[in-house]
C-alpha cells in the first residue's frame, strides 16, 4: 500500500563508493528488505497503547518486557477478528512486517489476532465477566423464570446445521410449538452484532403484532473452539441477553463450554438439545399428569363423600333407631304394665279369695235357719224316734222294777203270813220291840192290808 509510493525510485548517480540514496530510496529499500526478510510473521506480545481511530483502524503496540512494536489492524480486518483486541491482552498477531517511511518506523500489519493461549483468553473473559458482573448484569434478581409452557419460542441461531435441527426435533418430540427462527451468523465477522440484534429484535416485537412475540428465547450455537464461541462473550451480546425482557435460555457449545451470555441468560442450557428440553415440558407427561390429577380429583371427591357418608352413618348409628329406642321403652312399659296387671290381678284375686273366704264364713241367715231347722228337725226326728222307745224302755224298766218291787214288797211277805206292826198314831212301822211299850196299842197289818188293832201286854 504505502510501498506504492516508492515503487519507482529515481536512478542514483554515483559520486563515491557509497551510493547516494534519497530518503525515499532508502526507506523503500529498507521496506523491501524488511518485507522480503520477514514476510508473514507470528508475534506474541501484550497489546498496549491501543487507539481506535475514527477511520475504524486500530493502532496499538505489541510489547514484551524489553521491546515494543507498532501494530496496525485495518478496519476491514478488525471485523473478521475472532477476538476483540483489548488493552493488556496477550495475543499472537499474524501479519506482515512493513515500514511507515514517513516517520522511520516499522510496524506489523495484522491479519489476525489470536489469544496467546487459553489462559490469556480466560483471563480476558474473567476480566470482562467481573466488569459486567459489577454492573449487575448477572444479578439473580434479574433472572426471569421460564414459562412452563411457552406458546411461541424464538430461536437465535444459525439457520443451517445441527443446532437448529436438534432444537426443532427435540421440541417436536416433547411438545410441538410455534417456533420463530431468527437466523444469525454464530461466529466470525458481524456474528456478535447479529446475535445481539436478533435478541433485541425479538424483545422489541409488540405483544400483539403481525409477528407473534415469543414468550421464550433460545440463543444457541454448537460446539467449537474458545475462539469460535467468542461472539457469545461479546459485551453487545451479553448486554442484549441481560436486557431482554423475554426469558432467555443460552445454549452455546458443549456442556464444558461457558460463555458470558450464560451468566446473563435466565437459564443456561449445557447443549441446544438441553435448551429445547428446558423450553417445553413433555406433552405426554403432562397428559399423564392431567389424567393423574383427574383420577385423584375423582378419587378424592369420592373419598370425601364416602367419608362424610360414613360419618353421617356413624352418627346416625350412634343416634340410635327411634323404633328400637321406642321398642325398648315399649318393652319396659309392657313389662311394667304386665307387672301392674299381674299385681292387680293378684291383688284382686287375693281380695276375692278373702271375700270368698269371708263370704263363705258369712252364712246366710236362711241357711243358718235352715241348718238350725235341720238340726232341730234332726233332734225332733231323733226325739220322735227315741221317745217312744224311751217310754217303752222306761215302761219295761218300770215294769221290771215294779215286778222286782212287787217281789220285794212287804206285802208278798204278808202274803206269806207275816204281819207289819205299825204305830197307830203315824202308821210308822215298828220294827224293834223296844219301840213298843207294855199296854200300848199297835196296828197290825195283814195280807191284803187288813188292819186290826191289838194291845201289847
Amino acid at each position, binding site marked *: 500500500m504505502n510501498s506504492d509510493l516508492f515503487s519507482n525510485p529515481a536512478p542514483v548517480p554515483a559520486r563515491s563508493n557509497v551510493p547516494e540514496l534519497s530518503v525515499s530510496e532508502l526507506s523503500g529499500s529498507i521496506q523491501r528488505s524488511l518485507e522480503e526478510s520477514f514476510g508473514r510473521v507470528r508475534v506474541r506480545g501484550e497489546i498496549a497503547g491501543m487507539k481506535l481511530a475514527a477511520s475504524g483502524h486500530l493502532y496499538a503496540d505489541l510489547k514484551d518486557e524489553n521491546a515494543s512494536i507498532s501494530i496496525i489492524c485495518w478496519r476491514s480486518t478488525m471485523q473478521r477478528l475472532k477476538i476483540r483486541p483489548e488493552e493488556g491482552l496477550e495475543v499472537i498477531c499474524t501479519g506482515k512486517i512493513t515500514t511507515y517511511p514517513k516517520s522511520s518506523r516499522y510496524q506489523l500489519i495484522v491479519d489476525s489476532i489470536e489469544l496467546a493461549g487459553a489462559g490469556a483468553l480466560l483471563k480476558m473473559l474473567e476480566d470482562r465477566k467481573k466488569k459486567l458482573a459489577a454492573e449487575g448484569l448477572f444479578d439473580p434478581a434479574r433472572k426471569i423464570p421460564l*414459562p*412452563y*409452557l411457552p406458546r411461541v419460542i*424464538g430461536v437465535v441461531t444459525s*439457520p*443451517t446445521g445441527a443446532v*437448529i*435441527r436438534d432444537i*426443532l426435533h427435540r*421440541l*417436536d418430540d416433547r*411438545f*410441538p*410449538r*410455534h*417456533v*420463530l*427462527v*431468527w*437466523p444469525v451468523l454464530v461466529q466470525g465477522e458481524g456474528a456478535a452484532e447479529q446475535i445481539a440484534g*436478533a435478541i433485541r*429484535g*425479538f424483545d422489541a*416485537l409488540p405483544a400483539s403484532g*403481525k*409477528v407473534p412475540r415469543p414468550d421464550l428465547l433460545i440463543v444457541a450455537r454448537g460446539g467449537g473452539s474458545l475462539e469460535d464461541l467468542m461472539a457469545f462473550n461479546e459485551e453487545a451480546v451479553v448486554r442484549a441477553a441481560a436486557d431482554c425482557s423475554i426469558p432467555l435460555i443460552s445454549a452455546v457449545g458443549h456442556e464444558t463450554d461457558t460463555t458470558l451470555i450464560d451468566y446473563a441468560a435466565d437459564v443456561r442450557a449445557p447443549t441446544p438439545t438441553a435448551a429445547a428440553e428446558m423450553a417445553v415440558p413433555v*406433552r405426554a407427561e*403432562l*397428559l399423564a*399428569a*392431567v389424567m393423574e*390429577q*383427574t383420577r*385423584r*380429583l375423582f*378419587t*378424592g*371427591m369420592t*373419598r*370425601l*363423600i364416602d*367419608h*362424610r357418608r360414613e360419618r353421617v352413618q356413624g352418627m346416625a348409628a350412634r343416634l340410635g333407631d327411634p323404633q328400637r329406642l321406642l321398642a325398648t321403652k315399649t318393652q319396659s312399659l309392657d313389662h311394667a304394665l304386665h307387672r301392674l296387671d299381674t299385681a292387680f290381678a293378684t291383688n284382686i284375686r287375693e281380695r276375692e279369695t278373702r271375700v270368698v273366704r269371708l263370704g263363705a264364713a258369712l252364712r246366710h241367715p236362711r241357711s243358718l235357719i235352715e241348718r238350725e231347722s235341720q238340726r232341730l228337725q234332726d233332734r225332733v226326728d231323733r226325739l220322735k224316734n227315741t221317745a217312744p222307745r224311751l217310754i217303752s224302755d222306761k215302761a219295761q224298766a218300770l215294769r221290771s222294777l215294779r215286778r222286782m218291787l212287787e217281789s220285794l214288797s212287804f206285802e208278798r211277805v204278808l202274803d206269806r203270813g207275816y204281819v207289819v206292826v205299825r204305830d197307830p198314831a203315824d202308821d210308822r212301822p215298828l220294827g224293834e220291840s223296844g219301840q213298843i211299850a207294855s199296854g200300848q196299842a199297835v196296828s197290825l197289818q195283814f195280807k191284803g192290808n187288813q188292819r186290826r188293832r191289838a194291845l201289847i201286854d
Partner: protein
Amino acid sequence: MAKAQAAIETLNFESALAELEVIVRDLETGKTSLEESISAYERGVALRNHCEQKLREAQAKIEKITVNADGSVSVKPFAEQE
C-alpha cells in the same frame, strides 16, 4: 360457575395444572366443607378440560424471521435446507 369458567379460560397451562393440584390436595385431605368440595370439584373438572385443551394445541409451526429493508420484521416458513 360461569364466572369461574371464564376465569379459567385466561389461565395458562401451568397455572391451571397448579390450581388443579391444589384442589386435588384439598379434596384428598378432606378439610374443605362439602359445599366447597363440590364447587372445587366442578372447578377441578373445568381446569382438567382447560389443561387438556391446552395440550391439544400442540402443533408445530416453524417460521423464519426476515428483517426488511425498513427494519421491520416479517416471517416466512422456515426451510431447513437454506
